[in-house]
């Protein structure tokens, strides 16, 4: 029964997975670009961010159609309304990765941040996004809650990055602009972590019907 509706829900799922994978990809690109000191690589982000924006519109219209046609209740209603909220966070993640890519493009030299806290921040944020989408797909409450708690790791890495950069300013006062750019990048990673937490919280709501505040 309702096989057509079930098919539509499963296409919605696939679209969300695809959008989540794109978000993961753009974060990975900027992180690698920073680590390798490869400014050219960051140029790949802009077209992917456009694709993320396009997917947001397309998933949104899918959800509105489902609401209109199927008048979903219970878990179906929670799933569709959570999807609507999650794509807003995913779209912001795409924008922030694009912001980072833009800063990388303006850096007055290749960063080469391999092994730094900034690189670890990028990796942690990307992992959180990947896991939040995975939690959605598998309706995995434990994984969703783990994403929420991983935000502390990103936050403490941000504090480390700040300390490292303050040290840099002291030893290389001429590099002020470059160092400030890196700080902004770190802030964007920190925001991406927050969006991954939002996604994970929507997963919890979609499964349980309850909001769990941090």
């Amino acid at each position, binding site marked *: 029964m309702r096989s057509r509706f079930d098919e539509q829900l499963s296409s919605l799922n696939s679209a969300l997975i695809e959008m989540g994978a794109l978000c993961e990809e753009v974060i990975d690109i900027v992180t690698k670009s920073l680590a390798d000191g490869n400014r050219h690589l960051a140029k790949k982000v802009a077209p992917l961010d456009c694709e993320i924006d396009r997917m947001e519109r397309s998933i949104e219209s899918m959800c509105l159609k489902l609401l209109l046609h199927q*008048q*979903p*209740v*219970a878990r*179906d209603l929670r799933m569709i309304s959570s999807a609507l909220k999650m794509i807003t966070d995913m779209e912001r993640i795409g924008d922030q990765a694009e912001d980072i890519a833009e800063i990388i493009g303006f850096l007055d030299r290749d960063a080469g941040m391999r092994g730094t806290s900034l690189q670890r921040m990028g990796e942690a944020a990307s992992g959180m996004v990947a896991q939040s989408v995975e939690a959605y797909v598998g309706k995995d409450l434990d994984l969703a809650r783990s994403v929420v708690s991983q935000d502390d790791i990103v936050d403490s890495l941000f504090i480390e990055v700040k300390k490292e950069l303050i040290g840099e300013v002291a030893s290389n006062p001429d590099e002020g602009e470059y160092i400030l750019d890196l700080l902004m990048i770190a802030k964007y990673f920190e925001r991406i972590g927050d969006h991954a937490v939002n996604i994970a919280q929507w997963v919890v709501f979609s499964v349980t019907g*309850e909001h769990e505040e941090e």
Partner: protein
Amino acid sequence: MNSINGEKMEDTYKSIIQVDDLSLWYGQNQALHNVCMDIGEGRITALIGPSGCGKSTFLKTLNRMNDLVQGVRIQGTVSFEGQDIYSPQTDVSELRRRIGMVFQKPNPFPMSIYDNVAYGPRTHGTKAKARLDEIVESSLRASAIWDEVKDRLKSNALGLSGGQQQRLCIARALAVRPKVLLMDEPTSALDPISTSRIEELALQLKNDYSIVIVTHNMQQAVRISDDTAFFLLGELVEFGDTERMFSQPTDKRTEDYITGRFG
């Protein structure tokens, strides 16, 4: 559902009908199994479930309409305002005056609009014309049909549209000043506009009456009811706050039914 400091609180309400361990048999066939339910005063309670699940049977036990069915046997208690309605002392006609019923198909009597509404009060002894006029007008007003019929009260009720006939039947039920209105799929034979009129009307009436409504239209249950009861195979599977039931049902069978994946 109220919310204080983010803590969810179930609505607390006074009940007007208490059903306790109610079972019902039609001959050998058990149609209701140990149903317990408190029906809230001044609230709309929706009864949902697939055809044959016992919801209409349950509705009819609330004002003893099942007494008219041959071979029916009932166990358990139904208390209305503290009195067991199945006790031998109950005056059944008085009970049905206080717990009125509106049926699926509008069934006006083949007489004038006025006489349809005045019928009940007349049978219960009201004779004075001025008093009857007053009851007819206030009942028709309360049923949101006064403006449409006030200039043709002497016309035959069968000339009204289906939706108007149903509102007339509600007026007829209200004319004897009931406390509770039982509605058995009151909009299933009506078009969308008449349906929304009846729904609006139900929402207005709950200020003065308690309403129990059987409906196959789940969106209708969501739109108008405060509480919902889900029946399956004569069993009350789940009963509670409508919003909660349609967002977080606790029983898998409820979830499967309301999301259309039943069976």
